[in-house]
């Protein structure tokens, strides 16, 4: 019985390992390889040259990372400013035509963004918005905003109006109420929505390419020529940087939120000791 369970456990473990970790093995190996020939399972020569090129020789890498993050953060900041009031209205107020508003705001979840972007491309061109970071930011808004609205709505759903009434009775005006009562409650939800927004913005290729016309160099734009037929070692290294950037952005946000709560917790435990 016990052995059977151990066997089952091992099996489960291997399955997950195969599923998650194995696909990354060639990617990592390839990034450290030099002229890796078939049929060697391991590269015959390990080399840091691809990484050296990606991280040091090609100054475009850091610029592209910076551009990607800049766009992602601007997009997310705009999204939060737009989404919080909208979520407030959708959750807490009686609305005529609520379904219409929801359909409008959530439509970009279903309809792919490039459909709209291809349609508006020539209009953007006329207004001089192509080849600009601002234009790319505008293009990134519609595929990301619905997710932030959704996350904010989930938070608003769990915030009873009583809290704000209580703050009002203690003399808090509209701004104070939002800052001291509503915002702390919404923060985890907003962070979740922001994570998605950042992630989606960072991984956009086509719409950045169309609106940026190859002039706004985000990391996916920089990376594409390499993975569609360039040097595999450099392509692998870039892919890892790209994936790493996405994962790191999420982890940092997650950590920041955890720290925010830990600080509160620490203050709490300090109080108990006194």
């Amino acid at each position, binding site marked *: 019985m016990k052995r059977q369970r151990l066997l089952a456990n091992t099996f489960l473990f291997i399955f997950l390992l195969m599923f998650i970790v194995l696909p990354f093995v060639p990617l990592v190996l390839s990034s450290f390889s030099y002229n890796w020939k078939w049929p060697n399972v391991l590269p015959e020569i390990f080399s840091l040259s691809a990484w050296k090129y990606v991280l040091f020789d090609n100054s475009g890498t850091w610029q592209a990372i910076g551009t990607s993050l800049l766009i992602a953060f601007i997009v997310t900041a705009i999204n939060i400013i737009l989404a919080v009031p909208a979520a407030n209205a959708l959750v807490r107020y*009686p609305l005529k035509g609520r379904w219409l508003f929801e359909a409008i705001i959530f439509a970009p979840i279903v309809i792919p963004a490039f459909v709209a972007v291809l349609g508006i491309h020539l209009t953007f061109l006329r207004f001089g918005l192509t080849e600009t970071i601002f234009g790319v930011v505008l293009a990134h808004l519609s595929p990301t905003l619905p997710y932030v609205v959704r996350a904010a709505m989930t938070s608003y759903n769990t915030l009873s109006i*009583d*809290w704000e*009434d*209580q*703050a*009002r*009775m*203690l*003399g*808090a*005006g509209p701004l*104070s109420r939002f800052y*001291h*009562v509503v915002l*702390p409650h919404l923060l985890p939800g907003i962070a979740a929505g922001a994570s998605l927004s950042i992630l989606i913005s960072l991984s956009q290729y086509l719409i950045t390419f169309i609106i940026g016309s190859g002039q706004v160099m985000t990391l996916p734009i920089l990376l594409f020529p390499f993975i569609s037929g360039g040097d595999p070692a450099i392509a692998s290294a870039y892919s890892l940087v790209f994936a790493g950037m996405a994962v790191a952005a999420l982890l940092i946000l997650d950590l920041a939120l955890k720290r925010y709560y830990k600080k*509160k917790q620490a*203050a*709490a435990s*300090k*109080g*108990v000791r*006194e």
Partner: protein
Amino acid sequence: MNQLRIIQLEKKFEDRKKDENPVFSLKPVHLTIKEGEFFSLLGPSGCGKTTLLKLLAGLEQADQGEIWIGETEITNVPPESRNFAMVFQQPLLFPHMNIEDNIAFGLKMKKVKRAERIERAREMLGHVGLKGYGQRFPDELSGGQQQRAALARALVSDPRVLLMDEPFSALDPSLREEMRILLSRIHQEFGTTVVFVTHDREEAFHLSDRIGVMSDGNLLQVAGAKELYEKPASIQVASFLGLKNILKGSAGKFGMENRSQQVELADSRKSSMTHLIIHPEKLQLSTDLEKQSTAEEIIFEGIVKQLRFNHGFYLCTVQTENTLLECSISSRQAETVSIGQKVKLSAQLKGLHFVSR
């Protein structure tokens, strides 16, 4: 004088789908609450007492009428500027602030300096018996402690009126008793005007200087506890207060539906009144079956159905011809009667209370 005056205050809630009939409406309320008074609004849920409280707080807008405090009209002043305080059913302590910051929140909104804020918050914590809890977070306190902290938060900025919306209803019965005593003491100490909403009769009777009984959006009667009990203005009030022995009658004849058993009352002054209330302690039980009604006294005859022990005395339920009557008797007397026994109940006409419909 900073009395709170409510002048013909009115509020309708419309059903969003059908515009014609309001789902609920608060009929015009006219009321003056004295400074320092402890005033309770008592009524079943959905009677409009919380609506009235929210109108006073400014959290709801009245359709008609005015609210004055002293010589200032505040009908259209937003809640945050009224300098009222409110304690809700739930403690609603902000979970991301410790108790001290929670209590000091109102002072912070008034731009009081931090050192003074904290000092006053700590002092107030002492008053509600939470000394030393200031650094804790709300989730580290029990329900009763949280509600005490909420009370401290309401009191610390010295509100002109303290509004309380069933603040103890979410607590255990034993804690409720404790909170009542605390609130009584604090009211005496601070002398704040309190408007207290509750559906709990005992709570209202225990705490209040005056009580307003509400039902279906109407303010039925405003009086002190004793007067409400002894002289309820209507059957609705009486039945909500849980008064027993309410007899229906007409034009001077009260008693059982059965005509032959009607109790004739030779008292023409009461001819407009249609109901008679006999408090259980006004009924004398006797095993002497020879007694007859007189001009001063009415007699009911019946059979003992039930004897219940209740806080040091017994409640005896007697089945008369067509109605059940309750009377309270001492433990000693209870030993002399047994269930199924034939008894007579007598009441002095003088002490009886008549009401109209």
